[in-house]
């Protein structure tokens, strides 16, 4: 019985998740591009050698990681603050929650257009303000050192609400009695935060951290629409590089290699992170009697 109930879901999930992995592994061992007349030909691992020597791939890995780590840490920090505020009894809480949730509900591709205009030089609002203040133009979207931060800002704006929501769910699951008990013991607000709030919401924080890191690693819409990967490819992400190889260069074999390669890197680092967190966890729990 259980099997029948699960079967449709299992079939669909393996079609969409498992098949691609097998398909990519197969593709990554072939030359399959416009130069082979869109026919797959064995090429004895040439794709993999190319990947290892491809400066651009490694630069994109670095850029994607930089983007993911910066934006997710900022998001977490902001989200905790927002969640704590939203958890309190304030007038018009429903409306306020709805407003803070709004950025998350809007399509990324759509707001990316909006951000492109906000950061536009010289007529976007930020440059207008700097010129009004008599400052040098910043040229946000044409300075490689700055542009990626602009994409981080856009991403933080968009996804902080979602993390805040998960953490808010965590906060609301904490029974009020616990705080009451601590207060009777003479603890203040600060110690309540450290002793009760943080430990009890830490699984929620962990969940959103892992989830968002993985998603940020696959960033695509935002970059594609906001910067197109420029300037000087300084904002290009792994997913974009794979997309360009498939859809602009018609090199499907290499595109698949990029994707499976970055997937391997991602899952290895996830596994390592998991090990490290587990280690530290057991260390901490060992210290406490």
């Amino acid at each position, binding site marked *: 019985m259980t099997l029948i109930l699960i079967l449709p879901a299992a079939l669909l999930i393996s079609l969409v998740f498992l098949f691609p992995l097998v398909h990519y592994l197969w593709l990554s061992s072939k030359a399959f591009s*416009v*130069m082979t*007349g*869109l026919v797959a030909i064995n090429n004895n691992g040439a794709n993999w050698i190319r990947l290892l020597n491809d400066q*651009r791939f490694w630069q994109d890995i670095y850029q994607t990681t930089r983007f993911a780590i910066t934006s997710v840490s900022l998001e977490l920090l902001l989200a905790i603050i927002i969640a704590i505020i939203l958890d309190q009894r304030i007038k018009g809480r429903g409306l306020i929650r709805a407003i803070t949730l709004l950025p998350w509900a809007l399509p990324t591709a759509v707001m990316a257009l909006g951000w492109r205009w906000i950061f536009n*030089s*010289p*007529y976007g609002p930020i440059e207008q303000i700097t010129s009004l203040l008599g400052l040098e*133009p910043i*040229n946000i*979207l*044409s*300075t*490689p050192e700055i542009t990626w931060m602009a994409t981080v800002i856009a991403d933080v704006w968009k996804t902080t609400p979602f993390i805040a929501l998960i953490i808010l769910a965590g906060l609301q699951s904490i029974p009020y009695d616990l705080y009451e008990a601590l207060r009777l013991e003479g603890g203040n607000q600060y110690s309540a935060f450290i002793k009760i709030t943080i430990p009890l919401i830490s699984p929620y924080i962990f969940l959103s951290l892992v989830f968002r890191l993985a998603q940020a690693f696959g960033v695509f819409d935002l970059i594609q629409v906001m910067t*197109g*990967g*420029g*300037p*000087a*490819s*300084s904002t290009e992400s792994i997913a974009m590089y794979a997309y*360009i190889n498939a*859809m*602009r*260069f*018609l090199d499907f074999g290499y595109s698949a290699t990029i994707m499976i390669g970055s997937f391997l890197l991602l899952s290895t680092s996830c596994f390592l992170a998991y090990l490290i967190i587990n280690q530290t966890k057991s260390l901490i729990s060992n210290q406490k009697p």
Partner: protein
Amino acid sequence: MYKKISISLALGLILIVTSLLAGFASFLRVDHINVLMPAPFADSTTEIVERFNKDFHGKIKVHVTRGPMETEAMSDLAISSLILDNSPYDIILMDVTWLAKYAEAGWLVDLNQWFNKEKTEEIVTGAMIGNYYKNNLFRWPFVADMGLLYWRTDLMERPPKTPNELIEITQILQNRNKVKHGFVWQGRQYEGLSCVFLEVLKGFGGNWINGNAIGLNLPESKNAVSWLKELIDKDISPTSVTNFAEPEALQVFKSGDSALMRNWPYAWAELQKEDSAVRGKVGITTMVSLPGVKSSSTLGSWGFSIMEKSTQKDSSAKVIEYLTSVKSQEELFLNFGYTPTNIKLFKDSELIHQSEIIMDLYNALNLTVSRPQLPLYAQFSDVIQRELSAILTDKKSVNEGLSLAQKNSENILSSSAGRFQ
């Protein structure tokens, strides 16, 4: 018994009538032709398409899909429809750089059977470049398009001819506070940068890809790129030019903030509109070049191709013929400033009298150079865009960037060795 016969008779009658109706319907069948064009072209051809549908009423009906405006987004759309093997389009209006790739992928039809030698001879030579791949005619030109240098007639007596002259003239203007910026062009990391690069490179006497030789690390290339960098360093071009595509450049020039602009012919119509600050103060010429080197103009140009999977190729050819007729071209030129491709229009004395720029366009059209026509062009272009963008935004030196571009281009070339030409 009688009942059975009458039933079978009735059935037979129904069968005959329906098959007759079906036959009649197929006689009346209308070919529906779907055409994909970038938004500006879809808008400007609305009237012509309506007229076509009236003229061919009951035979062919054209449906135009208004694609995105940016060439790259347009190419993404076209390619994803073709990769899906389920393209809703019979005809696609194609950019010159897509041709080799699409042809090599087997997506296009040889147009020779509909457009013979007689017809090709009516087209200006410059506009016939970039329509062939491996001697097959895969694209029929719709609009000629080439890089132009727009200059302000109220700020200078004549446009600069050489790179040095350009720097001198604009610096004088800027020093006297006559104008904010000297020269705006397309410096964002995208195809437009490759177009600017090719024009300037040719003006410095260099070559990008010539057969099997890549000329990016030669002195000419270095001089050309150094000159572009110098424009930014000397503040002749604003730093933000490294994020300019055509619209941004036009926006600056149109509001009177720049003395020169590199852009395509359609900018002309935009600059003559009522809201333009430089209306009536603009002239056109081609990109500067070293003394003794011919000035060059990158060939843009859009043309129609019929898709291999289309089931209505003959009707599609009729549509293309209509849309590119002399009459349509004249209309598009007068109303939208689209450069014609038919030689008759450049010899039409009435038209020459009516338009102050048609002869300038004709001259530019004779100076066109095409970007390398290779199926892997997108890769080559991507390599140079990437390095140029790095150089222009101060991330790499000219030497460093160009030698890496040279190396990467050679790798692409060797990875596809023997499959070119």
